[in-house]
């Protein structure tokens, strides 16, 4: 289908440990679409948690490491909108403050080659119909960074619309934060929980079987509360929906 696209997968630290199935789904999906996928085993994390908590110097050392590891990659694909947002929004400032000219140049050259998964599919590969089959009712939570930093707009909805069997159940207030916010969920645990409970009311009101997003961090927050409350709903990363086909209806990824 797609000719000669080579991409390097940056899985992100929390997906690696907590959501390996998302990475597996990306491998399955992009493999099916003919993308030659590489994985640099030296990758760790590239600094969002530290930068967002105020540890800029520490975040810089991770940022530098990221640029060094991926400087040669033809395309970098990241299945996490907040991580891509971190690179686009915060790296320039970090390199301005702590980096040197060479690093800034290397980063400027790398930046346009970094894609969030749905950007890769739609903008780079030009595909909306990935041939997926997912016969379930699904609602979509627009993760804040995907929405306001990456400006993903209707891309996720376009991808979902082409999934066979999928019934989309629109979420009220889809653009309202779920209250995760990384360390916010612990530093301001009570406020975070209050926000979560409001979000969960909207999510469960859709009557969907699955709530999906581009970011497992939001989903981890929602799923954690769903499980606590015995809500009859699960969360699933968008990559896992797109990886499912008729021949492997549940994928290997649920």
């Amino acid at each position, binding site marked *: 289908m797609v000719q000669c696209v080579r991409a390097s997968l940056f899985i992100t630290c929390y997906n690696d440990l907590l959501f390996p199935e998302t990475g597996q789904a990306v491998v399955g999906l992009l493999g099916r679409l003919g993308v030659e996928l590489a994985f640099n085993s030296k990758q760790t*994390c590239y600094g969002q948690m530290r930068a967002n908590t105020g540890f800029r110097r520490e975040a810089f050392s991770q940022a530098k490491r990221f640029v060094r590891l991926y400087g040669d990659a033809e395309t970098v694909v990241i299945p996490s909108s907040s991580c891509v947002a971190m690179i686009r929004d915060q790296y320039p400032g970090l390199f301005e403050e702590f980096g040197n000219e060479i690093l800034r140049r290397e980063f400027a050259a790398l930046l346009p080659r970094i894609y969030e998964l749905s950007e890769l599919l739609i903008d780079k590969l030009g595909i909306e119909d990935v041939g997926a089959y997912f016969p379930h009712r699904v609602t979509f939570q627009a993760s804040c960074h995907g929405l306001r930093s990456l400006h993903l707009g209707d891309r996720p909805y376009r991808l979902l619309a082409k999934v066979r069997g999928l019934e989309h159940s629109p979420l009220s207030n889809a653009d309202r934060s779920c209250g995760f916010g990384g360390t916010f969920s612990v530093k301001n645990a009570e*406020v975070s929980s209050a926000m979560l409970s409001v979000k969960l009311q909207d999510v469960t009101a859709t009557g969907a079987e699955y709530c999906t997003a581009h970011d497992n961090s939001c989903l981890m927050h929602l799923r954690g509360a769903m499980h606590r409350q015995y809500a009859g709903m699960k969360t699933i990363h968008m990559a896992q929906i797109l990886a499912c086909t008729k021949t492997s209806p549940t994928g290997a990824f649920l």
Partner: protein
Amino acid sequence: MIYSATSRPVLDPRFAPPFPQAALPVLRNPQLRKNVAHATDVIQDKSGRLIQEKSDWQQLRSAGSAIRAHALENLGEYLEEFEARCTASGGTVHWATDAAEARQIILGLLRQEDASEVIKIETMTSAEIQLNTFLESAGVSVFETDLAEVILQLGEEEPSHIVVPALHINRGQVREIFARRMELSDLSDNHHALTAAARHCLRQKFLSIPTAISGENFLIAETGGVAVIESEGNGRMCLTLPRTLITIAGIEKVLPRFRDLEVMLQVLARSATGERMNPYTSVWTGVTPGDGPERFHVVLLDNGRSSILAKPTERQPLKCIRCAACINTCPVYRQTGGHAYGSVYPGPIGAIFTPQLMQMQHGQSLPYASTLCGASYEVCPVKINIPEVLLELRSQVVDQERGDPGRLFDPMYLGLLIANLLFTKAWLFHAGQRLGRIGARLFTRKDGWIHSLPGIGAKWTQTRELRGLSNQTFHEWWAARAKESK
């Protein structure tokens, strides 16, 4: 008081508890949360519709941002221009370095006037310098005239919003306050009845008290004029009826030219109250014999603003035109209301303004009172990049705390230190993951989920669970798969 179980909220960052603690009484108050959510939903709904009808909204935002940024870059010149023009028109300009100096200047002016009573129109700046308590203790009776401020003053309440200060109080509660304080036991909660009660009470003050204190929305350098934007007309009464008018203004509020109001009035009314045009726009320049006050003073307040001005990222809150769009859209504020911010400036704008006004010596928990969702930046009519400033201030807080040995006992700080070490080398990271997996097993129940964690993890598990870790990380899966295919 509305929530009598708790003490009156503290809106002084020097004494207020940190945000997570200050939020607790509100989180336990469903009535207040409901009031806040309802009121912000109503304003946002109106505002959203009116913004949609402006096809040039984004251009207006850009223009608003450029005007405010330009004013700040040339603030010194524009303030001097304002002073010269205002003085030439018969006004008197006073400069106050800090809150104490501003309070003394105002008290001095009231003494000159021999005033034992003063009427006031809502002003955030006077709340910032805690003018009312100061004047009361100096023997001057202060009467608020903005309807919301009247409710707060009579109810012995604190403001929770910068445009709608009594947003956390609903109509039934207003009735209760008025009935009790105005001794109108049969007052209904019909809005006509409530308005009539307030009007009756206020008209007497307007007609009998010859001295007023006001805030302002804009100072206009070109003309030396001052602008007040309001909905009720009570401000107009304060600005026109008294013999002497004292206006207190933050130095950042200057606009270069009169015509800049063209942009500001369009974005302000739509963002603030969801109106195409605010009902009352008062602009006056000095004094005019036979028309309005005979004596007019402006107190220009610095109170930490010039030190904020020095830094280009951090100075952004000084662009603020006090529309509160960021507050109305903020999902955190929606849960906590304004009092949790421990300052007269609540919400996202308060989170980036208050700690800086305090020279980063107080209010350090405020930059963390956000999920960085970016909603506030999106709606700000002068494009204040609130997440960017929040991050900058977080980094300043961290740098302040770096030298503190007590940090080594903070589990989150330790966790971040360890994580930072692990992330430097892949083998360390992988070893850390394996250790984490073993550790997590201790807490994972039969259903494969972690239901409760000790220490700081308990903050997570108080309302959410965590799926147990799978036996294979992604990179282990990848390596095993690569081996198989060989």
